[in-house]
């Protein structure tokens, strides 16, 4: 009536299988991590070198190389996910399906073994995932920051030198460029009113391209203060964002109107589903 004489459930093969799978999973992730470390250690100096030698103003060679390396890391993550789904998660479901009910003493004991196996394997996976993200961050920041401030100051000085050196192509009268332009702009001749087109130099165009990054560099302290606050403080975020956009507008005043719309959008995105 109470199943006193029924044979107790025992499944040593399952226990052995759990242990063996766990070991194989750990070894597999260890190997991936070793490969990850190899690639990071050897890849960072290569990335720095390519960045230094890259003459393209947008540093596209460096970017291609960075993407190639990141692709390798993402493949590792995909591979680990695939193995986890096929050999850990599927196995857990099939093992649990064959166990006695969890309400029975034996069932409860074996469910606990499977649960321990699941937690050990997933914890190890999360550790791998954290290390992979750290490695990706290290690659992204390997080249360091460009010195945009001195490039900007050089451009300001260069503009001061050239702003009075242009003449009207129609009448030959002197034209003074009223302010620093970063894109092609019509400048009317003060004498004959002809519409001249001023094309800024490549370096001046790059100021517009790098303006946000330069503003970010100038306000890095405020961003770090926000990022290191726990819990993250919305007031600090707003302070950082306002300061960053003010700097950005100071560098490229012509874009202030557009930037303000972008600022409002970022603020709304930050407060969406949060609190104001």
């Amino acid at each position: 009536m109470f199943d006193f004489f029924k044979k107790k459930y025992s499944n040593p093969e399952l226990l052995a299988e759990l242990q063996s799978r766990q070991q194989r999973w750990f070894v597999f992730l260890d190997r991936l991590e070793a490969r990850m470390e190899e690639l990071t250690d050897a890849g960072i100096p290569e990335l720095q070198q390519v960045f230094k030698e890259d003459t393209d103003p947008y540093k596209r060679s460096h970017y291609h190389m960075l993407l190639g390396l990141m692709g390798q890391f993402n493949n590792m993550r995909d591979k680990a996910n695939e193995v986890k789904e096929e050999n850990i998660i599927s196995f857990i479901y099939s093992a649990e399906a064959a166990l006695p009910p969890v309400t029975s003493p034996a069932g409860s004991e074996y469910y606990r073994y499977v649960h321990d196996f699941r937690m050990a394997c997933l914890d190890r996976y999360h550790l791998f995932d954290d290390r992979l993200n750290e490695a990706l961050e290290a690659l992204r920041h390997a080249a360091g920051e460009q010195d945009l401030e001195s490039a900007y100051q050089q451009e300001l000085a260069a503009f001061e030198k050239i702003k009075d050196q242009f003449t009207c192509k129609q009448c030959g009268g002197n034209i003074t460029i009223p302010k620093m332009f970063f894109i092609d702009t019509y400048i009317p001749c003060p004498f004959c009113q002809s519409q001249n087109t001023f094309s800024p130099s490549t370096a001046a165009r790059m100021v517009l391209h790098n303006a946000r990054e330069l503003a970010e560099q100038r306000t890095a302290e405020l961003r770090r203060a926000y990022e290191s606050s726990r819990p993250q403080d919305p007031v600090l975020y707003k302070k950082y964002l306002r300061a960053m956009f003010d700097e950005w507008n100071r560098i490229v005043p012509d874009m202030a109107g557009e930037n303000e719309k972008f600022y409002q959008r970022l603020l709304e995105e930050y407060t969406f589903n949060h609190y104001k």
Partner: protein
Amino acid sequence: MTDDNKKRTASFLEKLRQKATTQQHYGGGVPEEEAKMDIRDCPNCGAGRAYHKGLTSCAYCGFAFMNITLTDGIHIRKENNS
């Protein structure tokens, strides 16, 4: 790290670097150019374009410099339509 692994990684990185540095950039290279001033005269009558007469057509012969209606931009405003 074994020597074999080191060699394999070095060879992979060498190939990657080679490819990254010799690959044609999307949109081509960026030539280093100095600031310059240019002008576009009317190809029909040779007259210059005057700011107060608008940018889209020649004030003298009506030649259309562009077949669009200008809208407000960074430096160009809709008032610049001829």
